[in-house]
């Protein structure tokens, strides 16, 4: 490495030696036109070995970093998801903007139950669940029992498909198991301003209040095209303007999920003597 390299600025000729030549042999430029080429110090960043080692080290560092971040934050994130799920359940009971979610949830939600094949409820003894679409697929039909100022409510988690992705919601029913007390919808990726209104629009969610779910032993509650709902019908709700596909998704979700709950919805109202709803009027107890 004793020899230095000199490059002619005029023609690009490279001369090797300890000093620049007096005259360029190619173009005849004087010595002053030559400049020394300073080799970069350190590693050759173009070599194969360097490239492979660099990539390997980078991957290992990034992997460790991600694992570290993910594992340290996991507990907090899970707690947030549980909290958010509880918040959504409370929203279906028309409790919006609750500040202390955990305490409010414990105050109002009395039990997390599973519907049995005959429509009765049995205590669910697992951990609080945050993915009700998986639970639904596995046949674990959750029903939350709530006690709001002495009145019994049942909350059913729903899940389905919107236009772009998953949609889900919670419907709170009165003790008669058919009158909608409140409803909440959310979504993963519906269009802001259109489909996303199922979550954002309180007006849309409130339009379900007082509607009936069960019609003659089947799910009667329907979301129809915006503006087409029959005002006198206890079963029809207007969809979101301009979001027909998402509204159809909501309708399909209600139908799919609540159909599975029909044995519970048309069953007797809980234990004898406890019923506060006007059962005979609302469903067909045989």
């Amino acid at each position, binding site marked *: 490495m004793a020899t230095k390299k000199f490059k002619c600025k005029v023609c690009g000729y490279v001369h090797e030696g300890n000093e620049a030549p007096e005259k360029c042999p190619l173009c005849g430029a004087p010595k002053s036109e030559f400049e020394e080429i300073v080799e970069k110090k350190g590693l050759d*960043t*173009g070599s194969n070995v*360097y*490239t492979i080692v*660099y*990539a390997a080290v*980078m*991957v290992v560092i*990034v992997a460790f*970093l*991600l694992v570290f*971040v*993910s594992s340290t*934050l996991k507990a*907090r*994130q899970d707690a*947030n*998801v549980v*909290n*958010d799920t509880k918040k959504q359940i409370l929203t279906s009971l028309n409790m919006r903007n609750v500040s202390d979610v955990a305490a409010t949830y414990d105050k109002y939600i009395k039990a997390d139950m599973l519907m049995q094949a005959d429509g009765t409820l049995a205590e669910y003894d697992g951990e609080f669940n945050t993915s009700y679409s998986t639970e639904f697929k596995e046949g674990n039909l959750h029903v939350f029992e709530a006690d709001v100022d002495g009145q019994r409510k049942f909350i059913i988690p729903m899940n389905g498909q919107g236009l772009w992705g998953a949609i889900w919601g919670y419907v709170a029913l009165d003790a008669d198991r058919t009158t909608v007390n409140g409803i909440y919808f959310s979504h*993963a*990726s519906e*269009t*802001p*301003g*259109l489909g996303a209104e199922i979550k*954002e629009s309180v007006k849309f969610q409130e339009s379900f209040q007082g509607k009936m779910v069960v019609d003659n032993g089947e799910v009667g509650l329907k979301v129809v095209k915006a503006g087409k709902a029959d005002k006198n019908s206890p079963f029809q709700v207007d969809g979101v303007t*301009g979001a027909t596909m998402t509204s159809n998704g909501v309708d399909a979700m209600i139908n799919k999920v609540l159909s599975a709950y029909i044995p519970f919805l048309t069953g007797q109202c809980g234990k004898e003597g406890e019923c506060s709803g006007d059962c005979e009027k609302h469903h067909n107890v045989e």
Partner: protein
Amino acid sequence: MANKNNEALKQPIWVNNPVVVQILGICSALAVTSQLKPAIVMGLSVTIIVAMSNVIISLLRNTIPNRIRIIVQLVVVAALVTIVSEILKAFAYDVSVQLSVYIGLIITNCILMGRLEAFAMQNGPWESFLDGIGNGLGYAAILVVVAFVRELFGSGKLLGFQVVPQWCYDHGYLNNGFMIMAPMALILVGCVIWIHRSINKDLQEK
């Protein structure tokens, strides 16, 4: 030097705007601009991520093997976005729900790759940081303009608040549903480019 830094910060906001001049980040400009709020959030997140990844790449620029530089850039951006998203999920859950898909969209935002490749690979960390901030703000500015028009005429609202009074609707005014659709965003970006070019005449192609 101070002048050059100034340029790095100010150029991309107007004269060399990433969206209307470099035509980068159009896809996300269509996706998030139907309302003002997500547009602002997206604009700010991109600003922060571009600035941070610019700095990291700029620090590493002399060690990065030339042949895998795009991969290295991509890994840095993806790792950064993932970490930010994890942190948001843990400490600001509401914000992360708000951002939902957009945070993932940042990784694929062409502005990031464009600036890393064109600027951070050749310049020092501080200039790169300013360049990132400048480009992010330039991007945010276009998003806000487009989202303002789309939300105002598409839903009669701004930041979710009703601004078109009820009596307009009573007298037959209707929200323009087309404004909410993605094609309208493209048309609006086109209009912004048109205005921008007619002010900056030297940008007009012959």
